[in-house]
């Protein structure tokens, strides 16, 4: 008997491999610090609002932002911990507050990136993939969310063939219309490829958010103690 392998099976197998490789690529980053510039662009009026922050991140799910710009928001800090717990520190209000609803308190909630867009994606766990297309430099995958309460019908993701990081993600709503589109540019820090700039356009809101990372340092061995509520308060104010 001749063994035959279905092309569909082969495709699924390959696509699943790609997702695992994407997760493996993401997992090369254990922790990260960076200076972040966030530009929120109103595509209708052309107006741009800028925020700047210092980022500290320990994978997975521990993120500390300390905002430095605009001046009215300088000193504000947010700490995101596993389980959707977020603490907010605002200098004018003293002690950090625990926020009970992440969607309205995360550092990215004002941008077009959702918290999920910014954190580890767990591609293989969360999506079923098929390869739509392949070219010299990239795979184009069709990803179907596994979650029953999914927000998106599908994602079309362009994945770098050599390094397995996503270059472009197109989000389709449950009616099959494109609602968001993200693009990512990468730079090599040491031996690791990491996002240098990321853009997300929300078509229904005619709004784009662009995040520019600079001074990126990876895998410095950040500790859990760097991500405590106490760390949200600037050192000079901690004793007060």
């Amino acid at each position, binding site marked *: 008997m001749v063994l035959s392998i279905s092309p569909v099976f082969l495709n699924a197998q390959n696509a699943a491999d790609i997702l695992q490789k994407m997760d493996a690529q993401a997992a090369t980053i254990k922790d990260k610090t960076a200076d972040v510039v966030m530009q929120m662009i109103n595509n*209708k009026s052309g107006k741009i609002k800028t925020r700047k922050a210092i980022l500290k991140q320990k994978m997975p799910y521990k993120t500390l932002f300390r905002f430095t710009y605009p001046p009215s928001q300088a000193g504000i800090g947010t700490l995101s911990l596993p389980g959707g717990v977020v603490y907010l520190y605002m200098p*004018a209000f003293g002690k950090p*507050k625990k926020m*009970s609803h992440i969607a309205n308190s995360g550092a990215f909630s004002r941008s077009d990136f959702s918290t999920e867009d910014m954190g580890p994606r767990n591609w293989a766990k969360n999506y079923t993939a098929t390869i739509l297309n392949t070219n010299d430099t990239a795979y184009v995958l069709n990803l179907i969310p596994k979650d029953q309460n999914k927000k998106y019908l599908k994602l079309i993701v362009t994945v770098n063939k050599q390094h397995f990081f996503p270059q472009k993600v197109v989000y389709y*709503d449950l009616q099959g219309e494109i609602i968001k589109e993200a693009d990512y540019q990468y730079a090599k820090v040491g031996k690791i490829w990491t996002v240098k700039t990321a853009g997300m356009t929300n078509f229904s809101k005619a709004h784009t958010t662009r995040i520019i990372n600079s001074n990126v340092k990876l895998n410095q061995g950040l500790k859990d103690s760097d991500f405590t509520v106490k760390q949200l308060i600037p050192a000079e104010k901690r004793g007060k």
Partner: protein
Amino acid sequence: MDKLTEFTQRFKWIIIILSILLTGFFGYELTNIKLNSNVIDSLPANDSIVSLFKDIGKQFGGNEIGMVIIKSDNVFKPAVLKDVRKVTKTVGQIKGVSSVTSLTNILNFDGAGNNFQVNPLINMARLPHTQKGIDSLKQNVVSNKMYRGNLVSADGSSCIVVFKFSSGSDNSAVVKKVKAAIKKLHVHEKIFYAGGPFVTAMVAEIISKDLLFLIPITFLVISIILYLSFHSLQGVVLPMLTAGMAIIWALGCMSLMGLDMSMVSNNIPIILMAVGSAYTIHVLNRINQCREKDYRKAVRKALGHIFIPVSLAALTTMIGFMSFIFGAYLKMIRDFGLITAMGTFFAALLSLFFIPALLSVLRKKPKRKKAKKEVKSYLNDYILNPLTKLVLKHPKYILSAWIILILISLTGVFSIRRSVNVSDYFEKSNPIHVAEKIMNNKFGGTRPVFLEFTGNIQSPAVLKTMQKAQIYLRKSPSITSTQSIADIIIKLNGALSGKYKIPDSEAAIGQLWFLLDGNENISQLVSEDLDKGIIVAKFDGKGNHAAADFAKYMKPFLKQNSRPGCKIQMTGMPFINAEMDQSLLESQIASLIIATIFVIGIVSLILGSFSKGLITSIPIAVTVVILFGSMGLTNIPLNMGTVLVASIAMGIGIDYSIHFITHFSNGLKTGLSVPEAITATMKMSGKAILINFSSVAGGFLVLVFSKLVPMQYFGMLVALSMLTSSLGALSLLPVILTIRNKNRSETV
């Protein structure tokens, strides 16, 4: 005149071909015509209140809000809340909707100790199932002024799903999608739709339906009247052909000039069909009366007689329409006046050149059937002869009857009410009318007042003035609720610091803004540059003076608190409605004065005597008095439809008196006595006047079937005016002429 008729005969083919080519050209242009049913677009841009209102609508997206009203006995019942959630979710998934807010997805923030809680207002996973739980939830939500009257009615019987249209989306398409998607849900509650885009879409739907439905009916009604009058196919086809071509030319010009079809101008085809066919009727009538065997001679002779009366009739009608160009407040009414005047001109032009040219080519005199004689006899035997006898034998009776009618009408003239409310445009059964009623009764109305603050919106001083303004606004009986960024800052500050007030430091406000930045709902209250903020106050003042009284109430506050760095300006629909209301009266007076001066002036000029001009105008003056009297006595309001009637009635109705007095004067000139001249005029012009009245009134009466209430009244009142002006010309005018010529040998 001979040269003109000679010209028509000589260049008949050129005239015919040119007319056909122009019809083709304008017909093509007609396909590009756009429909704009938004009244706000028609408001004058140079008015400060209007321009501020438009700016606020544009900047804060106030004109792009839709509302789905969900009506039940108690919206806090789990089954109803689940339906509200279904509607919220469904609307949110529609392309073209950028944000949705309802009881089931709004987040409530609160502070407790070191926690800052942002939770859904209603926990949909743990809905109450006991009556006690339902009552407690209802009490908890409706007691909060941020939700009561905004998302849920105070009695808990209705709630609204508010959504914002995406920028640049096709609102009418989104409206259709929202309605279709909600229909598919088969929810158990009653659903209504409110908000500017829904009203605009409904008006557009009615306009389109009216155009499709009413034009064929008008065509049919006028055709039947014409056939009964002439009993010849030519007598029906040629007037309708003229009217049809005039409509195409006028609407083609409308498209070329970049003017949109509106809720007023959608009646242009019907009006032009009624008015435009009349000129060809006169031309045909005159040709029929010529006894020349050579048809071309008959056309030439008829044109010689009819050219001036038809031109004059068209000119006076055009003046009636043109009076709106100078007298009206709304652009849509000015556009209507211009295009209808142009259409009238085209109809007259076609009647005097194209129709004679066409008849010369056909070289066939319309067949007179026996039936025509019967109609003629019928009109003479049952209407004109008895009326002539009455006029000649009992002029005092007629005069007394008219005086009584005038006196009765005068009692109504002063009780005319005015109406500019959008809900009054629709029939009471129309869903938009019902939705407006619910919004008025349960959600404090749909007429917001805006207070715009210009200054640094993050400054404590500006926010404190905003809060002060809200407290002052709420003291007015006309205001049901207010909303501003100051409320949100106070609530946020309270949740974070326990102090429910505007923070004293700008730094604290700036940091609170971190939680608000980019929030879609905030963009409805604060500009992107944070240099402008608005208070949205719901106005529920009753009566014509409520807006003026409220403006008076606000004046000292604005004067005391508006300052450099915190400039306060006020606008809103109540003030625009008040201006529109006032403008209706002013427009009416202005257009009537313009029409009166020009009509009397032109009639005097053509008849060569000012006194003749004045006498000719008496029946139409009486018509106007009866028109306003009837409106007052029957409670028909002066609105954007009925404001048109008086000037149009004057423009069209004066024709009857012109025809009568012209024929009467000619009669006297040929040596007839006054009674003989009146008898001859009644026989000859009387019939034409009655046929013309029937076709014009019949055409306008079709508007009774319009779904827009102002247009129904418009149709009825124009028909009534045609009746009174034709009756005036056939009874009051001969009586006045008899009295005036009693002891005189010369004419008039």
